């Protein structure tokens, strides 16, 4: 059990004959594209040192060579399942620097696309979470139900993943004809489906016994470590950027944030599932309130130049608050683009959660962090 008085820092202890050092990853399927160096004493983890960087691609450096629009396709690569959300803060910041005011209809379509993406990402993550807990049904069901929404996104954007849908100035193309009806039908069915996960997964005594009281993150530690998203809200902090600092039209939509107090793996795995239901609610509300016609993008001048200055924008992605900091020096390319990604911010919590746990609980704790290694590495 992690206690709040753990000594800070990630220093690796000197090994003695009791302690064994294990490299989990980078090829191990249980760790994603990263390595976790754990030291175990018998069955218990005594030290943990996360080692990301195996999929570092230098997205921030690449963004310094391309203009504001050409940055769109490569900046979404870190999380292709959540590609609309990772582009969102970049697009908002670029719009402020370029001085663009985007049409109302585009704002609603962005919210719909972003919420659909949140569900797609969460379903993918839930499938992985299920299979690493040995629950194959929970791999099959989300992976299958996810297709519903991927079909929707394909109708909307033309691509199953990597949509490149948000661009500075609005969205790339308008919705196809009678999209609203199809979307409403699919989302309603999707919501009915995910409610069934409660019986097979979330109320399953086997899952509960494996995840309850493992990897407990206290409220104080969650704030101190600067965690975000489902990790933070599972520890009892009510903070969702969509509510606290609404961007685009989130302040006009009707939804709630989900908060749980226990801070264990179970709460962290339950929050994204509850968030998906709120996403369905947001989509239905947005479809209703959306202007039925109108322009969806403002035309950009060729090679627009950003104002001198810097902008920091943040949004709530499928994993937590995602920030983008752009510095511009009145050139065609941004001077510096910094993505502050939730996976990277949540990674710092991993040693605090794992120390004192049994090695066998590592997958349930690690995947409950809603961690996406490619995003953390950028």
């Amino acid at each position: 059990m992690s206690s709040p008085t753990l000594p800070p820092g990630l220093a690796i202890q000197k090994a003695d004959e009791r302690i064994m050092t294990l490299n989990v990853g980078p090829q191990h399927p249980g760790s994603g594209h990263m390595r976790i160096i754990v030291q175990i004493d018998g069955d218990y983890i005594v030290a943990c040192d996360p080692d990301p960087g195996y999929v570092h691609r230098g997205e921030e450096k690449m963004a310094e060579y391309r203009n504001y629009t050409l940055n769109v396709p490569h900046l979404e690569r870190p999380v292709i399942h959540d590609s609309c959300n990772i582009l969102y803060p970049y697009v908002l910041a670029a719009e402020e620097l370029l001085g663009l005011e985007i049409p109302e209809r585009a704002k609603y379509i962005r919210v719909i696309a972003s919420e659909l993406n949140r569900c797609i990402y969460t379903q993918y993550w839930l499938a992985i979470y299920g299979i690493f807990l040995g629950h194959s049904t929970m791999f099959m069901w989300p992976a299958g139900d996810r297709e519903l929404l991927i079909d929707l996104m394909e109708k909307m954007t033309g691509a199953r993943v990597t949509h490149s849908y948000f661009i500075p100035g609005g969205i790339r193309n308008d919705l196809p004809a009678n999209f609203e009806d199809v979307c409403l039908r699919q989302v309603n069915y999707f919501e009915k489906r995910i409610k069934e996960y409660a019986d097979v997964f979330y109320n399953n005594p086997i899952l509960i016994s494996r995840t309850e009281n493992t990897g407990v993150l206290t409220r104080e530690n969650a704030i101190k470590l600067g965690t975000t998203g489902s990790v933070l809200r599972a520890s009892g902090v009510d903070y969702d950027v969509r509510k606290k600092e609404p961007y685009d039209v989130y302040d006009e939509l009707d939804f709630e944030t989900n908060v749980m107090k226990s801070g264990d793996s179970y709460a962290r795995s339950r929050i994204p599932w509850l968030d998906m239901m709120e996403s369905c609610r947001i989509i239905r509300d947005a479809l209703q309130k959306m202007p039925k016609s109108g322009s969806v993008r403002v035309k950009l001048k060729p090679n627009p130049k950003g104002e001198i200055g810097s902008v920091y924008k943040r949004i709530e992605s499928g994993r937590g608050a995602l920030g983008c900091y752009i510095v511009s020096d009145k050139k065609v390319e941004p001077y510096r683009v910094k993505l502050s990604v939730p996976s990277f911010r949540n990674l710092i919590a991993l040693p605090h959660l794992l120390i004192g746990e049994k090695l066998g609980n590592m997958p349930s704790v690690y995947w409950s962090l809603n961690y996406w290694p490619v995003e953390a590495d950028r």
Partner: protein
Amino acid sequence: MSSDSDKETIEKKPEESKPAETKTPEKPAVAKPAEEKPAASKPAPAKEEPELPAFEKGIADKIIEKFGEKTTISFVKPDRVGIKVGRDDIHDVAEFARDTLNYDHVDSVAGVDYPTDKEIEVVYHLSSYTDPTLSRQVLELATRAQREEDPIPGNDATKLPSLRDIFYSVEFHEREVFEMLGVYFEGHPDNRRLLLPEDWADLPPLRKDFRNKGR
């Protein structure tokens, strides 16, 4: 499933068992004016007016009042305040921001290279979970380190004091800035590489003189 938990933590904000925090006792007396913030915290109507938003201006003024000429305001925008701080004062200003202004974590730490100024800027974006009046706010603390033409990361003059003892959450962010720009953070317990390979022997890659191949 709601905001049940905001109240209990305004008075007991994260004062973890960190030994560096021994100076706090006299600070709460200074922190009292923070109570009157909710009345003034309506940044939304300020957006229409051309003048500076009042609440954000108040935050900036508090810092200027305390530190005087050591800090300069770089911008005050709705929900965003930018403060430039010298290298020697960044630690004190960050401590003031945590103890008096109630910022409790760091969203992001960005390093920006300015070869023409021979300086590297490190920008901390502070934010708050526990103070409801600050939930929209981001405070940018920017400080600059001297830049060397031929960097030996960790062993040259490109150094800044670490904020790890004030904001625990900067730990990985500062490690990233160290490897990407070569800014060594003095006082950081763990200045190792994070994302780059262990055998990286080139320039720190986010410096402007490191060119991408073919570009």
